[in-house]
């Protein structure tokens, strides 16, 4: 797995300009938004897209075919994908956190809003990756991986119509639930990847 993380860090360095573009694009979109719902959706969609970016070049280069001739287990391959995607999505959301928090709290900086937004972003990011990564590993298409997120966030919005009521719950339980979902989805991804032919 070390080898794959080294490779991914090299690839992220090569794609640094594109990675820098994602937060900028997200901010541009946020400035055009007028509802909290769409703001969150925008951040999550862009950050998930960015987290899948290293896999695009791998796909073009047929890297998976070569990678699977090396003595690296499929489990390690999946864990490295989860690690690099998680790190990228966290970096993106850390950049977005002050801006999102500022916009959510009615253009004022308040510490509880900062924590609340951070927790919500982390939870949503974990959930988004938990769905997007298995979808990508199965389909090998970023669009197929991201499309379900619109639906999932839409449903979540319908269930939690008044998010403000759940502030404490989201702060405490949300990130844990997100991490559990992400962990469970890694098993689905390993199963899907093991079945794949190259």
């Amino acid at each position, binding site marked *: 797995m070390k080898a794959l993380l080294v490779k991914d860090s*090299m690839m992220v360095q090569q794609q640094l300009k594109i990675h820098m573009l994602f937060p900028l694009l997200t901010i541009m979109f946020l400035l055009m938004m007028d509802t909290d719902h769409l703001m969150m959706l925008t951040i999550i969609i862009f950050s998930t897209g960015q987290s899948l970016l290293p896999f695009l070049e791998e796909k073009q280069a047929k890297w998976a075919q*070569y990678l699977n001739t090396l003595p*690296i287990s499929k489990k390690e391959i999946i864990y490295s994908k989860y690690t690099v995607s998680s790190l990228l999505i966290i970096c993106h959301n850390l950049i977005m956190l002050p801006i999102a928090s500022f916009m959510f709290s009615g253009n004022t900086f308040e510490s509880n809003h900062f924590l609340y937004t951070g927790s919500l972003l982390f939870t949503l990011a974990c959930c988004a990756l938990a769905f997007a990564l298995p979808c990508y590993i199965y389909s090998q298409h970023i669009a197929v991986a991201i499309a379900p997120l619109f639906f999932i966030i839409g449903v979540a919005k319908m269930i939690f119509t008044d998010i403000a009521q759940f502030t404490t719950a989201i702060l405490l339980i949300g990130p844990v639930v997100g991490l559990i979902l992400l962990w469970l989805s890694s098993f689905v991804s390993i199963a899907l990847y093991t079945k794949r032919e190259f």
Partner: protein
Amino acid sequence: MNAIEVRHLHKSFEGFSLHDISFSVPEGTIMGFIGENGAGKSTTIKCILNLLKKDYGEILLFGKDIVEHEISIKNDIGVVFDDLYVPETLNATQLDKIMKKVFKTWDSDYYFERLAQFKVPAYKKVKTLSRGMRMKLSIALALAHHPKLLLLDEPTSGLDPIVRDEILDLLLAYMEDETHSILLSSHMTSDLEKIADYITFIHDGEIVWSESKDVLLYEYGIFNGTQEEVNELPEQAIIRKRAGAFGIDVLVQKHAVNPVFALKKPTIEDIMIFFVKGEVSR
């Protein structure tokens, strides 16, 4: 011991299947794997590497089942495809850093020596390298952990004769160690004539023959003549025949033909074409 042993391998896709593939590559030998496009060479190699899941059959590498012992076996093999399938923004030096973490036996000195020998730039991105350079880099990557077995799928296709010759020389140098083995799939039958010990011919997903190269080249002959002359040949000697530009060409078993018939020495390509396009009947 056999480096590779494939027994009754079956693999089906929509519109194509491998039927009952069986052959073996003895340790210390080079097996040439030939066949026309779409015959099943790459599919067989991918099954050997467990990149494709076999329907049934048995694949043993160094006497061990590839599915059960995948990781330990892959430590001892080097693979070269028809192109270098690594992220194209990386360069040869970065690939060295990655491979160091993959293989405990990775030999950076050997790797950079090969790059220098082939004049492959160490700091140029893979995407800027020519096809010949990419293939040389691919071979350096496959060799630098000192594998016991090399699997090469069309490594010389599309390369000029000079580069091909360099690659063949490197493969011959690799074979100086008697425990090393190679399975080399190629359209370039002339390359295989230079270096292979055995040739396996696959056609329409089935193995037509798997023979020692010397047996093929010295036991077969080509007779060219008219229909009347062909009729004089003993029936059991005729393997395949086909209409040529100047009469009928017949692939025969040399020892079964009277020396009065003038026979031409066949090439691997001749034999392959006879088996694909020739007829069995007189």
